[in-house]
Structure formats: structure tokens, C-alpha cells
């Protein structure tokens, strides 16, 4: 159904490609065309390292349609080391181990399988750093 949308997001989903403001240096993920800090439109692409730490977390027991098969799973806000927060699931982790401040790194994992067309959607998740 929304195959073009998933294709359009490939640089963000696989490479954490965001943007940086040439005016004030503000780094953005997801990418933007106007800097929210200084309104500059001089924006360049910027690839984030994928290193960060857990800022907040929740265990999802009742999922939206499309994610029912994966409950319970951990949804988190991760503070990337370059500054922005990102919304992502945690993976390869016990629910009890998750805590605010846990160091994590980005990995590529399956996000969901779409029932209507069999499309498997891949994207970023974060796992504990060793």
C-alpha cells in the first residue's frame, strides 16, 4: 500500500541520515528543511553515529495494528550523542535491564510485516552497547 513511503525513508531508516544547520550548527533527526532554532534554510545532510543512551522507556503490552505479534516490546526515547532525541524500539535486551541512562547503539532490524501485501519493513532499533 505505502511502498513509496518506505522507500522514501530508506536513508533515515538504514543510515540515520538527518540534517545539520549551516547557520547555527543545530543537528536534526528527522531531517528538516528549516532550522527550528534560527530559521535558516541553509541545511546540509548529516549522518548520525547511532550511539546514544536511553532517555525514557516503556513496555508496550497493547500494540497498534501491525505490531500485535511483537508484544511485549520496549519503546524508548534515545538521546543520540550528537544531541537529538529519537523514537525507537530497543532490541536484544531483557525488559528488566532497561533503565534511563543505559548506553545503546543503533542496529537494523525488522520493524513489521504488512499483512495486506507481504512487505517486510526494516529500520533502526537500538540495543545495549557492550
Amino acid at each position: 500500500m505505502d511502498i513509496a513511503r518506505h522507500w522514501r525513508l530508506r536513508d533515515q531508516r538504514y543510515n540515520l541520515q538527518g540534517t545539520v544547520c549551516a547557520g547555527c550548527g543545530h543537528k536534526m533527526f528527522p531531517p528538516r528543511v528549516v532550522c527550528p532554532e534560527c530559521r535558516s534554510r541553509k541545511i546540509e545532510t548529516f549522518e548520525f553515529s547511532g550511539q546514544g543512551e536511553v532517555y525514557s522507556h516503556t513496555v508496550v503490552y497493547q500494540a497498534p495494528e501491525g505490531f500485535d505479534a511483537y508484544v511485549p516490546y520496549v519503546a524508548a526515547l534515545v538521546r543520540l550523542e550528537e544531541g537529538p532525541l529519537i523514537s525507537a524500539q530497543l532490541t536484544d535486551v531483557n525488559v528488566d535491564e532497561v533503565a534511563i541512562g543505559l548506553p545503546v547503539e543503533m542496529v537494523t532490524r525488522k520493524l513489521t510485516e504488512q499483512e495486506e501485501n507481504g512487505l517486510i519493513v526494516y529500520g533502526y532499533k537500538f540495543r545495549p552497547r557492550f
Partner: protein
Amino acid sequence: MREVAIVGIGQTPVGEHWDRSLRDLSVQAILDALDDAHIARADALYIGNMLSGELASQEHLGALVADHLGLAGMEAIKIEAACGSGGAAVRSGALAVASGQQDVVIAAGVEKMTEMSSNCTTRYLASAADGDYEAAQGFSFVAINALIMQRYMYEHGLHKEDFAPFAVNAHANAVGNPHAMFRRPITEAQFRAAKPICAPITLLDSSPMADGAAAVILCPLDRAREFSERPIRIAASALATDTVALHDRRDVLFLQAGYESARRAYRQAGVGPDDIDLFELHDAFTIMAALSLEATGFAERGQGVRLAQEGEITRRGRIPICTMGGLKGRGHPVGATGVYQIVEAVQQLRGQAGDNQIEARRAMTQNIGGSGATIVTHILETMD
């Protein structure tokens, strides 16, 4: 700009209306409001709704509802701002009257949430968030609120049990509201034992999915006595926005749009928090009640929960909230909720709140869309 008054109110009971359609609910609430103002027609209709297209396969609600009121011909449009749609519809109606373009206006809200399975409705509710960067990661709307609550508990040294007074108060007040979905009290013990949906948020932190419609009739203040013996003045109407995605907020624990819309509303009305007698806030989740109290100046940062623990949010407290049950007890038909808040504030100010009556001359409402991206604040006053 002309001053605006509310001269009619109508509401359907909130609940699972398997036998009633979107148009049935809308028409019933609006006919009740028209009857309350002793009129049969109006000049325009602004109807708040979030998900009629996805959940009931019906868009174009303005024309549809005008048609079924027997009023095809008038200006009529749907207003959408996620769960803030109802408050935004009332503001649109108030602006239309204030501008002089329209005289007698219907502002309504409707939502039909029980047409589909709850995981399906959960998916569509997440469209109030960032579709590509929150919902696509498997984040439900509850999950996003849970992320706020978890961080709030961490920063302020609180436990999830500390949020119980919000839910207990809402249910206690819903008992006395014949239109409420849950007319039964809950205890702190029940709150502690509730099943998690997205930890730390449980079933008893969360307002329920529901069907319902509510409506108000607006007119110029100087004509208000033609329609009502107890007209209510709209002293302030303000709407502000913030980032749609929680991860884009400068501060995820502060409702900047709640602060900004309340600041504008206080200025319009020439009042402050100490002058407000009751506050219908947007307790979609207990954490949102705390953040709304903090954004509007009733509590310092991190103190919203303490205000509830000290009993100051009950009908006898310093700032009664959710006086007819709030979203938790009355129910949360998302696009209609903002209009229910206004209807309930009018009931209180008219002295028509029955068992739940509070001595009140000035009421505030705050309706929140998404995790805080659209926030609408209204201040209403009696005219005597």
C-alpha cells in the same frame, strides 16, 4: 471584534453506541443544543472530529450533518486537530461570530470509536503523532504518554501509585454525571492493581475509547438574552501549537502549547489562575492532568501530582478539575471531548450540574491534541 456568548448546550451520553451512527449522534446533540436555545436553525456549523474517515468511512462531515439537520445551505465544515478538534471547533465558531461574518453558530464535536477492533483504533489514534518517525516505529499514543510519565517519575522522584488521585477524583465525579461512561467510583487499591497497557501507564491511568457527540450554540453577546435566560460569556479563546513529535520537544516534560494558550487566554480575560473557580482539563492520561496543571500555573513544575495528593483537585479543593468525570470518567470520544468540556463548564456556571454542582462564576477548559502539539484554552464566565 464582537463579544461572544454560549446560549445553548447539548450532549449525548458517552459510551459504546453500537446502535447509533456518526450522523445519529451528531444530529441528536445538535438538536438538543438548538432546543436549549429555543431555535430551529443556525447560520453556520463547525464540527470537530478526528477520525471519521478512518473509523467510520465518512468524511465531509460539515455538509453531511448540516444536511441531516435539515439545514443544507448553511456554511458547514469539519475542523480537525487530533484530540483537540472539539476545542478548535468551538474556537472556530467563536471567531466566526466575533468577526461579524456569522450570527448564530453551532460548534459541535463527534467521534465514533467503537466501529472497529481496538488495535485498529489504536493504530489510527497514533496518526496524531509523527507518522513516519513515531507511529511507524510501533509507538502507540499510549506509549508516547508512557515515555513522558516514566521520565517525569524519574526526574521528580515519584512512583506510579502517586498518580492515583487523578483517576479516583475523575471516577468519583463521573458518578454524578448522567452522561458519563463510567458511573462508578474506583479505589487506590484498584488503581495499584490495574493491568499495564504501556508501562507505567495502566488501564486506570487511561481514558476509554468511546462514542459521543456534544454541541454548543454561539451568538453575539448583545443578543444572548434573546436565546437564553442564563447566557455564558466566552471571556477568552486561544490555541497554540508545539512540535508534533515528542522527540522534537525542547522539554518533553512541559506543555509549551498549554502554557502559551493559557497565557494568551489569561491576558484576553484579564485574569490569572487564582481567579478560576474550576478547570476542565484534558486527563487523557493521568500524566497529562499533572502537566496541564503545571502549564497553566496551578502548580509549579513537578508539583501537579502533589496538588492532587493534597486533595486540591476535588470539588471542595482549591482548583476542582474534571468536575463531571473528565476524560477518564466521562469517556474520551476524541474529536468531541473539547466540546464536552465546554458543555460541562456551562452546566456548572448555569447551576445545572446536579449532584456535582460547584459554586462557580468563572471556568477554564483546556483541550489537548496529540501529546501536546495543539492545545486550546477557553475561559467562560457568568453574566450576572
